[in-house]
């Protein structure tokens, strides 16, 4: 295999996943939380594809495409929720949505 070996790709994938986790925990705008979720999913996808290359087994790539479809569905529902929130004039701030707090 030319270039860096799989461990380097896995390092990028781990850092990408934690950047996404940082965004989900840190930001309060639900739009940016969704964008950070996409980064986390892509970190997972990169790990899947790196392991698939390492084992010479293309099933990992099939799984990555399934993850892509799940991410697309998640975006549809998430953006639908955000638009519904803004139509009801709720604050677009995940810290202020406390109706379900026990």
């Amino acid at each position: 295999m030319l270039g860096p070996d799989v461990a380097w790709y896995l390092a990028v994938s781990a850092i990408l996943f934690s950047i996404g986790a940082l965004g989900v925990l840190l930001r309060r705008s639900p739009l940016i939380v969704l964008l950070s979720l996409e980064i986390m999913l892509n970190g997972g996808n990169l790990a899947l594809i790196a392991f698939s290359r390492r084992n010479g087994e293309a099933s990992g790539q099939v799984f990555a495409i399934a993850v892509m479809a799940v991410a697309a569905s998640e975006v549809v529902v998430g953006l639908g929720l955000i638009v519904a929130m803004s139509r009801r004039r709720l604050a677009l701030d995940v810290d202020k949505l406390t109706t379900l707090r026990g």
Partner: protein
Amino acid sequence: MIVATVGNVIVWIVWIAAAFACLGSGLAVVSFQNPFYSALALIGNLGSLAVLYLLLSAEFVAAAQVLVYAGAVMVMFLFVIAYLGGEADAPWAGGPSWQVIGAVAAAAAILTEIVVAIGIKAGGRLSHSEHVGASFGSPAQIGRLFLTDHLLAFEVTSIVLLAAAVGGVILGHHTRKYDARA
């Protein structure tokens, strides 16, 4: 021999550029104030990830990444951000400072955990990788796997997409009724 070395150097250069673009644009998504710029940075992130997929000889996934993510999903994001007006909020300000510290600590803990888990389970064996043929990751191979070994995953994916489409319609419908009453 010389050709192989030159190829290796070129792949390293492309890899370093793509990896740094990927991580830098990821950080930009998290730290930009304006959600519009965050979405644009995410497009850069997805593009550089597609380059990394190509280096891992996953051509079909790279193409699907650009088409589905950077094309369809990001257009939808940009539409919604334009519709909502994209209010800016500073990433660090607003909440109490212990929240910021806690978030950074939790992300660092996740990173350490991943690195330690992979290092313990697979540390020495990662440098070896199988030799793959030219057809590895081609649309033909992925399509054959989808329709033979992974047929169930293929069908379940279609149900997930259908459920998401129905969910999107229902979410939009309810708000319209609510607006009419108000």
